[in-house]
């Protein structure tokens, strides 16, 4: 499983989620591609990110399997990753 993470430097919620995501990846080593909404705009637009940031797109064998939009709590993120891990691996 790999994750495409779309953030922006000006997004307060993205900064909060960066800390949470680094805790998640310490426990579950997940390959993560970090994209900046402004700097990597062309690449970001391929994923159709919508109007709310941050966006976490989970892929299994290059197939999108789940999308987390906006800010979530640490507990919620761990639960999501755990469930996806059980299902796809």
């Amino acid at each position, binding site marked *: 499983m790999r994750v495409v993470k779309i953030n*922006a*430097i*000006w*997004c*307060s*919620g*993205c*900064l*909060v989620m960066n800390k949470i995501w680094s805790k998640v990846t310490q426990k579950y080593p997940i390959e993560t591609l970090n994209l900046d*909404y*402004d700097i990597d705009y062309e690449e970001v637009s391929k994923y159709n990110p*919508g*109007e*709310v*940031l*941050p966006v976490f797109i989970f892929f299994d064998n290059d197939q999108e399997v789940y999308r987390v*939009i*906006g*800010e979530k709590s640490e507990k919620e993120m761990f639960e999501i990753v755990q469930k996806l891990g059980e299902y796809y691996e």
Partner: protein
Amino acid sequence: MNKRKIFLLIITCLLALLFPKNTFAENTIKIYFFHGDGCPHCAEESKFLEELVSENKEVELIKYEVWYHPDNAKFLERVKKEMNINRSGVPVTIIGKTAIVGYSDSVGYQIKRAITYYSEQDYDDVIKKIENGESINIVDNFSELEEKSDYESTISVPFFGNINLKRLSISTSAVLIGLVDGFNPCAMWILLFLISVLIGMKNRKRMWIYGFTFLISSALVYMVIMLSWLAVSVKITTSIWIRNLIALIAISGGIINLKSYITSRKDSGCQVVDKNRRTKIFDKIKKFTHEKSFILGLVGIIGLAVSVNLVELACSAGLPLIFTQLLAINHITGMRAFLYTLLYIVFFLFDDFVVFFVAMFTMKISGISTRYTKYSHLIGGLLMLLIGVLLIFKPEWLMFQFN
């Protein structure tokens, strides 16, 4: 009913609220002031009333000196008998059906509340009727409503218990409204971008000065706009039309905030700002922070703060406007108005300063959870709806007691 019809219905209802309940608001309210020459409390009240009258064109002051004018003394006795006033002594102030004996600061506020009350309730010139020998009715007067409203204005708030809205002071409002306004995300994203650029700079001294200048300039812009609006609204506060217009802005702002809360209830996060505007502001920040001349960079940062905060005022959906209206309705001007506005701004910028200081000391940019923004929409929405409705139906409840 389709969405468009519902929208038109809501707009029609809101516009209907703009129309005053009666036309008495445009009539002159007479303050009958019975006083004695040489009585210190009378002199104090006289000064207060003269200032009040000079500020309100709709109010007229009629004085009766009773210590040296036997006819006036006799008339006062007749008024007291007709209005069932048992307390003796002067000063005696009559406004509509309300009689007040004695004077203190709290009486001053009571007089102001009475004027606000009679500017929209059925004002009755009782003294004129007594002079003409007509029968009078003093039942259900303002004093009785004041006592009754003390009970009615108590609301039960989860976690906080019973709160009497009348006693909720202006300072509490300044802190609460300022804090709610501060969590508005409009300026936060610009500050975060500024900080991210500042952290990339090698010059730590410049980082502090540029960041601090942005925040202080933002505070000054807010202060100037709020005080200017206050200066205008103090003069027009007795106009029921203006007050209802502000109430309408408050109600609309409340609905917008509650709608934002409902839509972001499940997915809180950062709403993407218009790309063109974002790029423009980013370019400006980069240009100013990389400016070789320190002074030019500083001027640029000040200019940016001014333009950003002018836009942010509109983004705040009227919270600063509503707060200045609270000051105006309580006749707070001068130094006290400045201090209350300062208190509002300190709490308005509280989260911005926290983010700035943490970033400057740790050299890492940290965000404040957008969950707070979500709750600020909820609290701000409810607060604006409450103030809007009170401005129309119970403006006297918004006249806080300071004694």
